[in-house]
């Protein structure tokens, strides 16, 4: 139990670090020196010390939005295993709870954005929901395919049953799942090619535009929630590639954290070499991930 709580605290502590790694990778490709690896920690710390300003047109939903989102994401992170070791909470069918917690977080972000009454935020909210229509079923079906391969319905057990390295396992279906999950991972964390986290041009933003009116502590909550969401969705990918090792927990932890760093570097490389898709092309990209997930599930149903 102590180890499980320690793992949960590790997720909370380590997740903002990955954004530093991504920014360093992008800076390397751009030939810049780049910000500190701990920049997001500084930003969140700074924002937590500030007060928030609320518009008079907003209601309690605007205040509650970031808090509910962050707490939903934190709860979801309690369901996610760390380095293949069981998570803090796990029961049969918790993968459905996991997906709905992420859905709840998104729902309240969207509601808070709509609550401001700003037309830009409304636009961002509509785009976010439009893309979620494709991303959520794809996530559901990929997790269902994983559950089918391993024969369990709990996220912890899925990753502890994926004991063998997928490349050696000779299970090409895994590649379909990895492909689908990677597209979902980029979409849900609003990275290039779906969304650009650095853009501040209202007509093209998706996620960024929804949080324009949040400030101070609320913005800190949103940044922190984004970092943890990046970590937990990334765990699904690194978990597939690493499986559960049994060379002692220290080795597992080191390999897992190293794997997450590599994932962050891959995201940085993707962001450096790819351009953003045009907005009308994004659903097409997401349908590809949906198609991969459907194929994976159909192949595992046999």
């Amino acid at each position, binding site marked *: 139990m102590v180890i499980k709580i320690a793992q949960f605290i590790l997720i909370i502590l380590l997740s903002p670090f990955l954004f530093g790694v991504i920014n360093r990778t992008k800076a390397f490709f751009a030939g810049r020196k780049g910000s500190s690896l701990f920049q997001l920690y500084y930003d969140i710390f700074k924002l937590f010390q500030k007060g928030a300003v609320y518009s008079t047109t907003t209601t309690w939903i605007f205040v509650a939005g970031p808090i509910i989102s962050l707490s939903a994401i934190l709860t979801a992170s309690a369901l996610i295993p760390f380095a293949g070791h069981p998570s803090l909470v796990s029961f049969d069918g918790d993968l459905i709870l996991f997906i709905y917690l992420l859905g709840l977080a998104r729902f309240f972000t969207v509601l808070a954005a709509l609550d401001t009454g700003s037309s830009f935020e409304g636009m961002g909210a509509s785009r976010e929901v439009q893309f979620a229509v494709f991303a959520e079923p794809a996530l559901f079906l990929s997790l269902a395919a994983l559950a089918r391969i391993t024969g369990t319905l709990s996220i912890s057990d899925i990753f502890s049953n994926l004991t063998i390295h997928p490349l050696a396992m000779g299970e*090409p279906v895994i590649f379909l799942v990895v492909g689908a999950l990677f597209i979902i991972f980029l979409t849900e964390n609003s990275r290039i090619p779906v969304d650009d986290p650095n853009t501040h041009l209202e007509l093209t933003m998706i996620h960024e535009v929804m949080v324009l009116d949040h400030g101070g502590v609320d913005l800190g909550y949103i940044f922190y929630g984004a970092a943890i969401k990046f970590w937990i969705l990334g765990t699904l990918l690194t978990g597939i590639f690493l499986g559960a090792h049994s060379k002692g927990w220290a080795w597992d932890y080191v390999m897992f954290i190293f794997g997450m760093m590599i994932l962050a570097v891959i995201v940085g490389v993707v962001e450096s070499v790819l351009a953003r898709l045009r907005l009308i092309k994004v659903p097409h990209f997401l349908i590809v991930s949906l*198609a991969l997930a459907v*194929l994976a599930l159909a192949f595992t149903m046999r």
Partner: protein
Amino acid sequence: MNSWIDLIIISVILMNLMMLSSSRISTCIRIVAFQGVFVGLMPFVINAQSITLGASISSIASITLKGVVFPWLLFRAQQEANIRKEVDPIGGYPLSLLAGVGMFLISCWLSARLPYERPLFSEMIVPVSFATFFTGIFIIVSRMKALTQVIGYLVLENGIFLFGTALLVEQSFVVELAILLDIFVAVFVMGIAIFHISREFDHIDTQNLSELKDWVISKQEKQHA
């Protein structure tokens, strides 16, 4: 060994989806060539030790035809007809992709209802071959250009080849060689036809062929008069 079969099957179905969603004719020609080679390798992968002479001849012939000769013919037809434009499907690319997934699910259901005389090498080979020939038919129906319709025809043949290797490994080669000859002649003739259409009408959009019906209209007008 089994995982190689799975790998080929999964790449065949992925290539179907790529073909449905790619917008360039030259990409489609390349994908269909790769698919032909992958499908042609299937008999070697299924029984590497005990492959008969006939089966290997038919596989090698199909690999050379689909991997080398057809792409060359199609690229030449593309150059001579000077087609650089996109595939322009009816209904757009996302819809075609979803249709591809739908056709795959239908063929899964369909193949589960077929009685098989002996156990198959892989459970997925029949649904994937069905999905491949549905995809071929879909490409023929939903694409406007004559050249893409030839590509759809080739996808259809890939599906038939895969189905043949799945069910009758030894006896299939006579049938296969006959089909290959047909396909070869068809692609050859279609290449010439495309060239002539494009020289005559400046484009190969088959939709405009339906306007060649003034004879019927004039007959109707006479009747009205």
